[in-house]
């Protein structure tokens, strides 16, 4: 009888104990399972160390897992708070103060402090490190959670450079790096990201494991494996067999086959890499390209939609700009319709009723297929150009050293904002600039000294408007990076962060049904 009386009480106690666990969100469950990526490029140990960020997008595939930044691009936000919960700028634009989150830790259990932030910035030696060092006067750490970066002069792009265009804002543990050295760090990296390092075979495989103490949320997948499979067809075969769950970079006919395969999904990620045709001779009065009508004719001669459909299954973005649409200060220009009669009319008005020989169209061999399509469309309108594909390094060297003439197929995946792209490709003295316009140069100098963001935005958008009006370029597309996702994947992380080519953030990646 006494037992009968106790039973309801025990049941109530048991329910009370189990109910919270049953009602808890799935995210708090312990991470489980494994997801495997077939990666198209060789993974390098330098990508474990943000101090060596080379200015290309690929290492961010690893940074988003191993490390964390003060602020970084996240889903829906170009600059989301990361390890820093907030930041502020002094009125004169010379001091930026960051406040770190409370209780954040590295994978070895040590707290992330202001000293680590200072160390990471001072240690940074990757792309644009010279620019940063020339402009940063010093870094102060008033307390363990507060970091002040002092600039020599006001620099409106400081946050862009610090949080996304370089690896300087990605934080590494000072004590650990000093203990093991730079080389030791690359062999066993420790960060403050959602996944900790387990093992690495250079060029072959990287294995990471969930770091449950990650501040944003505990990752849901226990183990991430990145397998390097250089051949595209082999990557697709591995995906079809379920040996990998996500396969990066599946293009052309293989992408079509991927789409046809039951259980597999094609996931495009439009990346911050626009492609365009550059009229290199437009400043030469003897060249047909000097006439704006000819440049407009080339723009109307291109059937961008058809090219996009044929080469990237319609997933690339036709923005009509040379600046990534996700970049700060971007201005959306009107896009050109495919209008061959108009192109021919413009050519006739410019004095070329029978078209003209346009010389060579220089392109990087990796994207010669895009050049081939563009050249075909130009020819249909009467602009007779010959495709001249060059190996990537030779192409960019020739482009940079101003060795090319006629037409150049430009492209860039570099980080930055509209100003950094205009600097490289439009304004006088830019690395890839063959000629300039005084009105654009004037506006560009003006914006560089402007601290008011709204005024600066207006200036940069005015420049983009002029670029469009003068038809300096014939923009082609913003490239879609095509990937395959297998049936076990719930959330692949692809396309969550605007302009980012790879899966991220990894703490949001899930297996189906988990």
């Amino acid at each position, binding site marked *: 009888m006494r037992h009968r009386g106790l039973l309801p009480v025990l049941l109530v106690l048991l329910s009370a104990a189990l109910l919270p666990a049953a009602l808890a969100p799935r995210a708090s469950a312990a991470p489980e399972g494994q997801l495997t990526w077939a990666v198209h490029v*060789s993974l*390098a*140990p*330098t990508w474990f160390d943000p101090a*060596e960020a*080379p*200015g*290309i*997008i690929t290492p961010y595939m690893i940074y988003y897992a191993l490390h964390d930044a003060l602020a970084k691009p996240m889903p829906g936000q170009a600059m989301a708070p990361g390890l820093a919960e907030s930041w502020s700028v002094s009125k004169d634009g010379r001091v930026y103060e960051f406040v770190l989150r409370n209780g954040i830790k590295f994978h070895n259990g040590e707290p992330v402090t202001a000293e680590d932030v200072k160390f990471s910035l001072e240690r940074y030696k990757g*792309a*644009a*490190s*010279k*620019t940063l060092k020339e402009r940063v006067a010093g870094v102060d750490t008033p307390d363990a959670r507060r970091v002040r970066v002092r600039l020599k002069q006001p620099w409106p792009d400081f946050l862009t450079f610090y949080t996304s265009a370089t690896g300087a804002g990605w934080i590494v543990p000072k004590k650990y790096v000093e203990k093991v050295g730079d080389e030791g760090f*690359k062999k066993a990296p420790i960060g403050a990201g959602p996944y900790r390092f387990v093992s690495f*075979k*250079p*060029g*072959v495989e990287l294995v990471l494991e969930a770091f449950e103490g990650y501040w944003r949320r505990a990752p849901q997948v226990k183990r991430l494996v990145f*397998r*390097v*499979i*250089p*051949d595209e*067809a*082999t990557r697709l*075969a*591995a995906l*079809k*067999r379920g*040996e990998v769950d996500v396969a990066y970079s599946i293009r052309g006919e293989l992408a079509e086959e991927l789409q046809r395969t039951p259980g597999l999904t094609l996931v495009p990620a439009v990346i911050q890499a626009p492609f365009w045709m550059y009229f290199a001779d437009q400043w030469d009065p003897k060249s047909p390209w000097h006439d704006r009508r000819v440049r407009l004719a080339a723009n109307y001669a291109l059937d961008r939609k058809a090219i996009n459909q044929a080469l990237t299954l319609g997933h690339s973005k036709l923005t009509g700009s040379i600046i990534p649409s996700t970049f700060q200060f971007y201005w959306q220009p009107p896009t050109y319709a495919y209008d061959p009669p108009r192109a021919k009319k413009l050519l006739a008005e410019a004095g070329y009723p029978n078209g003209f020989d346009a010389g060579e169209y220089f392109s990087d061999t990796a994207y010669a297929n895009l050049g081939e399509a563009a050249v075909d469309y130009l020819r249909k309108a009467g602009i007779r150009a010959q495709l001249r594909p060059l*190996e*990537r*390094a*030779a192409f*960019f*060297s020739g*482009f*940079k050293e101003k060795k090319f003439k006629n037409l150049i197929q*430009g*492209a*860039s*995946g*570099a*980080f930055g904002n509209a100003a*950094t*792209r205009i600097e*490289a*490709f439009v304004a006088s003295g830019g*690395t*890839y600039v063959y000629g300039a316009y005084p009105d654009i140069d004037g506006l560009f100098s003006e914006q560089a000294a402007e601290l008011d963001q709204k005024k600066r935005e207006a200036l940069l958008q005015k420049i983009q408007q002029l670029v469009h009006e003068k038809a300096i370029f014939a923009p082609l597309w913003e490239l879609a990076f095509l990937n395959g996702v297998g049936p076990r994947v719930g959330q692949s992380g692809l396309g969550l962060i605007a302009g980012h080519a790879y899966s991220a953030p990894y703490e949001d990646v899930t297996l189906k049904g988990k």
Partner: protein
Amino acid sequence: MKRYLLARAGFALVSLVLLSVTIFAFVRLTGDPAVLLTEPGASPEDLVLIRQQFGLDRPLWVQYGSFVAHLARGDFGQSFYYRTDVLDLYLSRLPASLLLAAVAMAFSLVIGIPTGVIAAVRVNGWWDSAGKIFALLGLSLPSFWVGLLLILFFSVFLGWLPSSGSGSLLHVLMPAFALGWYFAAAHMRLTRSSMLEVLGSEYVKLARLKGLPEALVIAKHALKNALIPVLTLAGINLVLMVNVAVVVETVFAWPGVGRLLYEGITARDFPIVQATVLLGGAMIVVVNFLVDVLYAVIDPRIRYDR
């Protein structure tokens, strides 16, 4: 004999020096690695910084001098891309290449020798024609295409074998076949011609006249002698297999030195390309040297003639 050995060693050394000069010059003709390590649009300062970091801003003769000085200490330099010791990287990949070469060699011998013997015994018959077609295909089909067909059939269609990577014996089967077929064809051709020569020799005729069964004549008397040149070739081919499997290792994502060379070439990683080519060349030079020495030991005419 001592003079002969010294002369051979001297030739081997000269070959390696010439190889080092050639590969040093050739990799630099391919272009600037800094361009591949940055995104288009990178500032000229960044490119200069990268060149300085790798010592590529120095005159070529200074770079070569430094390369040879480090080489003399057994230091092949640091990879531009992996930023790690190239020799360590090479040694970490070598076991996979040795395994692949060993299995591919087993394939090539198991397939090449019996088909060569049958083709010789049934000369100008159906088997001989089939053997010739097999050899022709093996020598002419590109290994990347064979590899992809194997993956499609055995991995995707039948689902029997893993498509790529390493880790189990099943992983090595397809790459070993794709690599071994070419060499099987070469071994088949040599076995066939060698067998034909031996089968026409006096001692084989005598064995037949003595009334020995044909199988015994072929297996015991003919094959034994016919295999000598085949096994000599197989020894040299084994070294080649370790070093030439660039395409096969890339298609199957096999982590060997061939794939390392591919990675070095695509990333314009000069130290990796220099090290893999030089170490591969050194292997071939050493094997040739040993073969020369063995020949000299076996046949005194060689050491007196040269």
